[in-house]
């Protein structure tokens, strides 16, 4: 039973990792949001499984909170945002996707090497996924660096938050409830502010291309 459960948790974690890779190479903005929603759902799934096995009741609450926030509210908000900004069908040119994938794989190997010595100290059922969580953090980071448009950058930022949530469940059965509520609030306020922000950027530059935002170079 336990072996099956930990297989299930690992399965969810691998889905999250694959989705992180998919986001890294996805060029269409609307598809990025779909991928993000699926990733959120996978995070919820793995949290529910961990909560069910360990009888940690607060994990059910945080799974519900995550579902509400990352599967419903934020994707809904993002869809509305891209509709109003008229960038729904925008395609971003990404150079050298194969190279990006190889860098991504190197990051995963690196993350596993860093996480391995620590994961063995954790006695949670999901300790194997700590490496995956760290890998997802680094992949989201890579995504943010390689994107030139504002919306994909923000989605990279949100994916990083997903990965951090996964890390918290796999290492410690989640953070204390107060902290988790605080983090959720910060994410929600953050995304609202970013929404306001995108309209300001568009109004000023007539485009959401971050390449316009490189005037303040170090002279």
């Amino acid at each position, binding site marked *: 039973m336990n072996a099956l459960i930990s297989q299930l948790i690992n399965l969810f974690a691998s889905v999250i990792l694959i989705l992180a890779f998919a986001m890294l190479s996805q060029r269409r903005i609307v598809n990025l949001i779909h991928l993000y929603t699926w990733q959120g759902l996978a995070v919820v799934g793995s949290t529910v499984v961990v909560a069910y096995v360990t009888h940690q009741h607060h994990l059910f609450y945080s799974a519900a909170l995550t579902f509400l926030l990352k599967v419903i509210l934020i994707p809904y908000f993002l869809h509305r945002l891209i509709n109003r900004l008229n960038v729904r069908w925008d395609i971003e040119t990404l150079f050298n996707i194969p190279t990006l994938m190889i860098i991504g794989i190197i990051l995963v190997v690196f993350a596993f090497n860093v996480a391995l010595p620590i994961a063995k100290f954790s006695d949670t059922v999901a300790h194997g996924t700590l490496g995956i969580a760290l890998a997802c953090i680094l992949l989201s980071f890579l995504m943010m660096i390689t994107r030139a448009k504002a919306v994909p950058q923000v989605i990279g930022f949100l994916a*990083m938050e997903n990965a951090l949530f996964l890390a918290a469940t796999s*290492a410690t059965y989640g*953070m204390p409830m107060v902290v988790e509520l605080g983090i959720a609030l910060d994410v929600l306020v953050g995304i609202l502010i970013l929404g306001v*922000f995108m309209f300001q950027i568009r109004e000023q530059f007539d485009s959401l291309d971050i390449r316009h935002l490189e005037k303040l170079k170090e002279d």
Partner: protein
Amino acid sequence: MNPLYFVFGTPLLGGVVLALIGHRSYARDVNVAFSAGSFIASCVLTVQIIADGPLFALEKQFFIDPLNVFLVTLTAFVGMTTSIFSRPYMRVEQDHGKMTPGRMRLYHSMYQFFAFTMLVALTTNNMGTLWVSMEAATLTTVLLVSVYRTPASLEAAWKYFILCGVGIAQALFGTILLYMAADRVIPDGVDALLWTNLDAVKTQLNPTIISLAFVFLLLGYGTKVGLVPVHNWLPDAHAEGPTPISAVLSGLLLNVALYAVLRCKILTDGALQSQFAGELMIGFGLLSVVAASFFLFRQKDVKRMFAYSSIEHMGLMTFAFGMGGPIANFAGLLHMTLHSLVKSAIFFSVGHATQKAGTQLMEDIRGLIKVSPTVGWGLMLGSLAILGMPPFGVFASEFLILTTAMRDLPWATPLLLLALGISFAAIFSRVQPMVFGVTSVKPLAHPPALVPVFVHLGLGLMLGFYIPPYLNDWYLQAARLIGGQ
């Protein structure tokens, strides 16, 4: 009733009230009133601490000890003086058409919420809440940095948001690892993130997990401290936002972030029983001091220049705390206090100067002393104070840091001296013609609020001669708490 609740309850209420009042002309007075209320509460709190010693509140979720008590008062104080400064300053900005009524509402409300997040970050006992409030501090200020909606300010705010967001995400990962290590020692999970509980069991925390956690925490909170190489957001955000915001970012937010690093360092030192954390901080600190001093020379914008000076001084403090030991820690704490006071005073003078000259470019600001002697002298004395001229207090703290470095890390001393020399040349050679020289600046419609400038500089001067005994005690106790060596 515990005065601690009033310390951060007042700005929270203020944020809500000011959002409701909107742009009415008395909003700026209400802003001052709420900041003053918070400061008075912090004074009452201080008196109580002097009488009764450290305290806990709200089931140990909040606490006051020698390390945060003076920072709370300092934060509330600078918050108040900055709100006084911002009264005439923002009025002129409104006259110039840079601030619309809606923006004024946003500005006042967010100013109070920002003060609230910093005070919570300082007084919370929970490492998770500390993270949440640090992130909230970014969120409240990001719209203030872009409040003028110019291309440059939008760029600065975007950089600020993304860089600090990514940085603070690293700190969250560090906090998760910290919780993981604590979970193995403290059985009741809910209280395992309370700093006092962690401090009690720090020697039993797993060293492998803690060392990795500290790397992430230092990188994460270090981004907000403005340590090189993760400092890029800082000069932009300081230069493009309204000057009162530059003053509180530089004088307060950077301190709060460094305070978070210190809390983590104490735990790491206890768990590792080695110099690992200190050495990392020495490295980052020294790099920041040296790199910032070279960047200083290339600046044309006055606010950017003083932003780089902030990076330099934050680096110097990080370096001092990295060395550890009673003297270096004492010097670091003193430097934290002085930098806050003096740097915000400089930004106040710079704010009025740039408004008078109508530009932030240093070569276009000339002869301030002829039009407005107080602004000119404020800028001159402030610059001399921050450059470490005796008899100002910065001289004392820098002297202590340098002599400790000579004893413990002789190889670092020439680098520090070189950096301090370069920044002296860079800043002094720019400020001198701005203050003296042939003038082109015009007087302002509303008289500038210069009392805060001279109160800050007066305090900076006083700390060079005389440190009140209780403040001295706190510094000593906090220095012992931070430990090292």
